[in-house]
């Protein structure tokens, strides 16, 4: 099985947005979701495009063009979906984040806090 490339924090945000949006993941909705996840930091739409291209080149997401719609001036959307490699990269990132969270909780003596368990949406 191919080992996924390391993904950066912004790439994790974009992958998470695609995962949660499912079939409705395209430029505008992904940007909105990423902005929501990255709040209060502002997110540029252009940065989302660059990251989507990079993730596609890494084989973590796949894209396709839909039919044109009138609200977009008769232009098509490019929709994205997560590939197996992207899902695995996201899982690994979530596990790393969990380990970091555990280590921080332990170091700060906040062991009473509920343990964060990332749950994969069905």
């Amino acid at each position, binding site marked *: 099985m191919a080992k996924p490339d390391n993904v950066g924090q912004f790439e994790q945000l974009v992958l998470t947005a695609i995962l949660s949006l499912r079939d409705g993941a*395209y*430029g*505008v909705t992904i940007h909105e979701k990423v902005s929501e996840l990255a709040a209060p930091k502002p997110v*540029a*739409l*252009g*940065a989302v*495009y*660059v990251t989507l*291209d*990079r993730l*596609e*080149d890494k*084989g973590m997401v796949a894209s396709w*063009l839909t039919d*044109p*719609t009138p*609200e*977009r*001036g008769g*232009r*098509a*959307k*490019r929709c994205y979906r997560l590939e197996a490699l992207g899902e695995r990269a996201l899982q690994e990132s979530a596990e790393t984040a969990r380990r970091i969270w555990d280590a921080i909780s332990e170091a700060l003596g906040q062991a009473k806090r509920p343990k964060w368990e990332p749950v994969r949406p069905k």
Partner: protein
Amino acid sequence: MIEKLIGVLIPPAAREEVLGDLRERCGDGARLLREAARVIPYVVASRIRRTTDAVVVLMQGLTLYTCFVLAALWMARPLLYTDWGFARLAIAPCIVLATVILADAYADPKKRPPLRAMAAPVLGMALAFAAQPVPRPLMIWGGLIGTLLVVMMRLAIPPLADRRQTARVPAYWQKLDLVSLKMDFGGARLMIAAAILLLLLISRWFRL
């Protein structure tokens, strides 16, 4: 009108979806223009990253520069003795390379005109001629031979988007990799920076 103008500035490979997204987010008018001004540089940069093969561009740059240096040695040796003489010789290759990189980024992946490999270097050299960074005879000989060699290189190693693919994978995966030369990206950047510094030093202080 504004939308058409913005459409021209977006590389054709991403035009449909980017323009659609901008229209959906901003509607029509000044807001569309402001948002486009923020988004387009990212889209162009991303397209350049996808269509540019750094190793091939480096080879083309060195070929062009060598042609101009040899032409100068042959026809305008005094130019090499002047301050920044070697650096002046690098201006025309830089203009050609910038044109080639942008032309590849703005190439329409759906259309593959047979003369694409030739058109970008010729256009770049025409722009360099218009800028005239070195004397005319030097431009003619250095430019002519350099353009010819670059066109041949582009025919032998076509632009990334035009390369034949045997599997449904991104064209980007066919990029030549500096790692295979036992050189990481940081090392390559260091070498390029050292080469530019050396060129400037030679240009400033070296007198034949």
